């Protein structure tokens, strides 16, 4: 999948062509159009990316190509042509023939796409068998090894839950490519993985598909990633293709307003832009959301010293082994600034957040808040401490009580801490909703009636209800679409300068860090391997791990022309 589209010799017949495709879902409220007039072509061996936010119809469009629409969805207009054959209304038998052998799929979430009750080897074997290929143990091992799974022969005898996320995705890639399909549909193949793993997997997928000459239809929400990996990018918005063209052209000269917004706020591209701009001599601060770095050098609101957390892991026969999740971590947060703790899953960053919040006891070390060690607080002092340090969690769907309406959700901490009268509390809730730019009419609604971005705004309002000094954001924007993510990050930055808040930002996403943090601490396997100001860490990473993390940000390899930057 390099950017060498130039030399196509034979008369090019598109491998996949969608013509004026419309997809409709029948729901209890009547027919809902999901995709309208979608038009795209994929040439043999070419990589085409569809970019869009969740609900844009990008996955639906791609799934329609192998007849995998949900039961209530149907192609209501247009046609799907695969290798010259119209398969729009092909028989079930014909579609089953094509699946696997001619069109493969790598699905989005490696956690839910392997059947938990069958061994990995079994799930590969049945794919080979169903498509009439040799399916002995050595064939299965070969397929898995090709996808970069180490020790494939014995790994094939394990169950999915014994695999890490990255390994599962390799198994799914192995399954998708096992029958040498001519087209591979990759539906957000790495969005659930850590950045470094993401990079390895995408690189491997690139190499494999290039060697095999497989065309790839890549679906992603990350414009940076799409531009880096694909020859052609198609932007979808609300069920329609709004723009299509060569990747770089789209980035440099986006014509549709939605594409322009996307280019402006995609974190991977934004962080690229900062880098290019710095080369041109612009100060980072001018490009970033406003923050108060200069004044806050001495006043440290949180100081963490030699923080250690050891978990006991239960083994067989009543034994237990120690697992050091956090190993002698020290850092501090200056008042009014943002410190980000970055690391991949399993690095111990969330455990740090839990200990700073006082939700998890430390094995050793100290956490000082305003000079007082919180590990020694009694019940009452802890209660007061909770008021001054508030969390915002990752999943806005899981962290709001579905039975509480928005008013009750935001008012609850005030009531628990006995703040004001009912009337005063209501006034406060209105103010808070105003601060997070939600209409106060929303007070009577329930979480399931809100979008992800709106919910995260509610979560922020709840966190701010008690006028805390420190807000701990544990992957607070990771679950959101890029445009919403940008809005929430701006909101957090505005609130910081307005209220003088200090943030502890726990995240795996370095692109986000670059946009919001003043200081960065990088964690690897429980240890803090590097820390410094954001500019220091991003410009001169000293450890190999940080360098690998930075290199793995999608879009890092993009050569942006100066006019974009």
């Amino acid at each position, binding site marked *: 999948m390099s950017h060498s589209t130039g030399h196509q010799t034979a008369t090019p017949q598109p491998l996949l062509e969608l013509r004026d495709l419309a997809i409709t879902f029948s729901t209890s409220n009547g027919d809902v159009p999901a995709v309208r007039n979608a038009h795209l072509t994929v040439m043999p061996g070419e990589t085409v990316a569809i970019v869009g936010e969740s609900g844009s119809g990008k996955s639906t469009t791609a799934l329609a190509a*192998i007849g*995998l629409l*949900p039961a209530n969805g149907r192609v209501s207009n247009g046609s799907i042509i695969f290798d010259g054959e119209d398969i729009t209304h092909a028989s*079930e038998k014909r579609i*089953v*023939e*094509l*699946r*696997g*052998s001619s069109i*493969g*799929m790598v*699905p*989005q*979430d490696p956690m*839910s*796409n*392997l*059947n*938990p*009750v*069958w061994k990995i080897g079994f799930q590969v074997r*049945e*794919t080979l068998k*169903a*498509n009439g290929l040799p399916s002995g143990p050595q064939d299965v091992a070969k397929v898995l090894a090709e996808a970069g799974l180490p020790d494939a022969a014995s790994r094939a005898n394990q*169950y999915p*839950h014994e695999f890490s996320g990255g390994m599962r995705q390799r198994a*799914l890639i192995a*399954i*998708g490519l096992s*029958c040498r399909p001519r087209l591979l549909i990759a539906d957000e193949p790495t969005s659930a993985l850590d950045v470094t793993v993401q990079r390895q997997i995408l690189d491997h997928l690139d190499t494999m598909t290039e060697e095999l000459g497989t065309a790839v239809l890549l679906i992603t929400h990350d414009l940076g990633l799409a531009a880096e990996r694909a020859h052609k990018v198609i932007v979808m918005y609300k069920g329609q293709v709004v723009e299509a063209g060569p990747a770089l052209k789209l980035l440099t000269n986006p014509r549709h307003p939605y594409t322009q917004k996307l280019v402006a706020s995609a974190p991977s591209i934004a962080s690229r832009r900062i880098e290019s701009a710095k080369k041109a001599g612009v100060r980072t601060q001018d490009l970033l959301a406003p923050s108060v770095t200069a004044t806050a050098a001495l006043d440290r609101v949180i100081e963490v010293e030699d923080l250690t957390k050891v978990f006991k892991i*239960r*083994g*067989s*026969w009543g034994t237990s082994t120690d697992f050091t999740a956090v190993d002698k971590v020290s850092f501090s947060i200056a008042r009014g600034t943002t410190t980000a703790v970055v690391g991949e899953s399993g690095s111990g960053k969330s455990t740090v957040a839990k200990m700073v919040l006082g939700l998890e006891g430390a094995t050793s070390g100290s956490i000082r808040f305003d000079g007082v060690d919180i590990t020694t607080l009694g019940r009452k002092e802890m209660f007061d401490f909770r008021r001054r340090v508030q969390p915002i969690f990752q999943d806005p769907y899981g962290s709001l009580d579905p039975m509480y309406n928005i008013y009750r959700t935001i008012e609850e901490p005030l009531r628990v801490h006995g703040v004001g009268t009912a009337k005063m509390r209501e006034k406060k809730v209105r103010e808070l909703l105003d601060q997070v730019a939600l209409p106060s009419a929303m007070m009577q609604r329930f979480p399931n009636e809100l979008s992800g971005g709106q919910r995260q705004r509610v979560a922020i309002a709840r966190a701010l209800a008690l006028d805390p000094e420190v807000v701990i954001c544990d992957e607070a924007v990771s679950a959101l679409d890029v445009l919403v993510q940008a809005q929430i990050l701006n909101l957090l930055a505005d609130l910081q300068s307005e209220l003088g808040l200090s943030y502890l930002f726990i995240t795996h996403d370095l692109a986000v860090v670059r946009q919001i943090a003043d200081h960065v601490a990088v964690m690897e396997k429980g240890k803090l391997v590097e820390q410094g100001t954001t500019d220091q860490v991003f410009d001169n990473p000293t450890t190999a791990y940080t360098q690998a993390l930075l290199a793995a940000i999608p879009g890092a390899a993009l050569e942006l022309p100066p006019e974009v930057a």
Partner: protein
Amino acid sequence: MVWYIVRRFLQLIPVFLGATLLVYFLVFSLPGDATAAICGERGCTPAVVAGLREQYNLDQPFWIQYLLYLKGVLTFDLGTNFSGRPIATIIAEVFPTTAKLAIMALVIEAVFGIVFGLIAGLRKGKIFDSSVLVLSLIVIAVPIFVLGFLMQFLIGVKLQWTNPTVSGDATFTELLLPAVVLGLVSFAYVLRLTRTSIIENVNADYVRTATAKGLSRRRVVVVHVLRNSLIPVVTFLGADLGALMGGAIVTEGIFNVNGVGNTLYRAVLNGDGPMVVSIVTFLILIFCLANLLVDLLYAWLDPRIRYA
């Protein structure tokens, strides 16, 4: 795994002690003189009553009685009931009939429940699904004795396809009708459980992935949908087996089956303390073993579950 099974067996000890103590205490505190039940309407002479009291340890305080009973159980001597027959012999006599009935009922409810539930789940919202749901609701709502008498009357008396009651031999054909009645209510639950589980799994991501691999519809349904959907169903069936083995007092009563349920019912009516305690204890142990079986089956069906 071995350690887990050993631990589960060790757990049976407190369950056994607690259950026997509780049942023994309840029987002990029943009003009236236990010997009156033995002697019947004519009564016994004071000497005979005293003899009976000594024979059944009724003259001892509660704790001694209980400990003597435990001693008997530990030496595999359940004692005799008030009619003087060894209790172990009676259980050995009636339990096979109940076990046969229970297994027949279980097979009926499992096979029909899973098949109907699978079809209903795959055709959610269609006519088959809706009618099966309504029928199962009726079966659940109507009391078992109504269903029992109804089927006994229709099939046994009117159509005369089978004997309306079960003879002492308890042959397969005779037990068929009571087994159907016994399995009917659980059949409705198995059906609904399977249906819900299928509906949940049929939209799972791994099912879509399996389809994308190029597998046939049949293989996707059997290998990827059905197996995963059976996990909660098997749990229910296992627990139900324990309950069925305990005998069905109503069903056994209607069809005159000489099983555990009927025997227990008579023992309760007669105030036959030793008999009641022994049978209930036996049933509790059976129930615990059935539960252990469920847990092991569960681990076999779902490899994510590992006991240590």
